[in-house]
């Protein structure tokens, strides 16, 4: 039985995640958006910044998604929005994962005072109202997407740290880690070679599930005037423009659908990925904080 398993496992590993129809849908949507961000939005004939059209035109033959309050083409802005929203949310998630992950790993591995210090700071960040923290940071640094990302980074690393810490604590007592240390590997080797590869997957799944949340949070900050700086096309900022012009529903709906599609896509993928993890690690992911 084990032999058979052994032969088939490596070839089936990725498809196992992707066999789920929801995961296929998710992956295709993400691929599509990457294509849009990298290619299509650059060669799109209509300038997303040009204020050359009649204002607030409803969707029609000339402007499929209509025009906004400054007479810009909503379709080209939605496409161009992928260039800011996608990379920034990915950046945010990756940074939060690296920062939170490293701190969590250090806390979990070394324990004692280091653990206490790092985790109490994380608790504090948790206890402090996220939006206030983000707003104060954004207000202090000035609104810009980069600063919004920094603000969100500061408030979002602790959930990664918590997950990572509990994973590392679980793993550091593992017999293969102890065996490694008995063979003389130092703390760094032990963390890097023995622990990290075994706890990375749940962290990555958590990150996948977080990409959507990141886009939403950034758009929320944009809505509050603390995120994207005009005229940069950004989905969140566009949706918040649409709130001002609520009757011109197309201003908000199309970027909103874009956000929805990306969030759904990443969640579908993350879900499928998590389901394909073994139950014990999946456990840790589901115990994540918000």
């Amino acid at each position: 039985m084990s032999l058979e398993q052994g032969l088939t496992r490596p070839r089936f590993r990725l498809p196992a995640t992707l066999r789920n129809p929801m995961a296929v849908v998710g992956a295709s949507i993400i691929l599509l958006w990457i294509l849009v961000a990298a290619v299509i939005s650059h060669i799109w004939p209509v300038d997303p910044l040009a204020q050359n059209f009649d204002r607030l035109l409803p969707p029609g033959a000339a402007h499929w998604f209509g025009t906004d309050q400054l007479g810009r083409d909503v379709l080209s802005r939605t496409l161009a929005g992928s260039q800011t929203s996608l990379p920034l949310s990915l950046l945010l998630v990756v940074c939060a994962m690296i920062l939170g992950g490293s701190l969590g790993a250090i806390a979990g591995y070394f324990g004692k005072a280091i653990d206490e210090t790092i985790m109490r700071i994380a608790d504090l960040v948790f206890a402090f109202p996220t939006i206030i923290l983000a707003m104060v940071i954004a207000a202090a640094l000035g609104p810009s997407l980069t600063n919004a990302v920094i603000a969100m980074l500061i408030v979002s690393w602790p959930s990664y740290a918590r997950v990572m810490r509990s994973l590392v604590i679980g793993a550091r007592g593992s017999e293969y880690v102890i065996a490694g240390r008995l063979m003389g590997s130092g703390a760094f080797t032990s963390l890097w070679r023995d622990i990290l590869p075994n706890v990375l997957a749940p962290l990555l799944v958590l990150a996948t599930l977080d990409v959507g949340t990141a886009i939403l949070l950034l758009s929320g900050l944009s809505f509050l005037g603390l995120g994207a700086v005009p005229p940069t096309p950004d989905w969140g900022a566009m949706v918040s423009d649409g709130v001002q012009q609520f009757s011109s529903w197309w201003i908000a709906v199309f970027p909103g659908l874009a956000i929805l599609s990306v969030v759904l896509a990443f969640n579908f993928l993350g879900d499928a990925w998590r389901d394909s993890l073994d139950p014990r690690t999946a456990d840790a992911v589901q115990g994540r904080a918000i």
Partner: protein
Amino acid sequence: MTNETPAGDGAEEILAVNDITVTYRRPGRSLLTAVDGVSLSLRRSEVLGLVGESGCGKSTTARAVCGLEPLTSGSVLFNGEPVSPLSMKRRPKHLLGIQMVFQNPYASLNPRRRIGSQIEDGLGLNRQRDAWNVNELLEKVGLHPSDRDKYPHQFSGGQRQRIAIARAIGTGPDLLIGDEPIASLDASLQQRVAALMRDLAIQAGSGLLFISHDLAIVRTIADRVAVMNRGIIEEEGPVDTVWRHPTSAYARRLLAAIPVADGLGKLPGLPTRRQN
């Protein structure tokens, strides 16, 4: 196979455990003395069995010997030098001669690394550079050299345990500790793996501390046996003596409780009732 010539009295003593005590601070401040004044000694090419019920402190003793558990009192000398507790720093060179094979075959190998490279880690420690190579070791434990490029999940529990043994032997240890290395294996495998471990340890001239709750198996591979109960050693001596003429009441009960596969339907002896 039982009771080969006991290691000569002249062989050098590699491990001396002198009256060690290990206490755990449990959540809620109550202290628990898991090991309470245990003394053991072990020579080269000797197999010492440590048996006892679950929770009696066998693993804790083993961990203390490796320096994984800080001692409350007593000392552990390895090759005459004290074993210092394993801190977050790299383990001191002279202690690399102590290696351990763990209970859980599913957890004792890094699931993300090929077994070949994990065995190589062990070989890197060996003072005699060319004492072994990976292929030899694999063959020694009954695996095929081509298995070196596989990952642990591609092996069964018994196979993994043999890989773990190969890795430990590869380091050329002076002291090999098996903490219930066979407990989670299939009945049909237990005996084979235990015997393999003994053979390899003796062949390499190491001492073997073999921990198990199964006295029946320990009896087949150990030279001497120590019976542990609630943190203390109840009885220690040559395995035949303990097996046939146990002196402590506890050892007797333990022996009596082992069901014998003789087909006679004889129920094992009852333990005395204990209050928790």
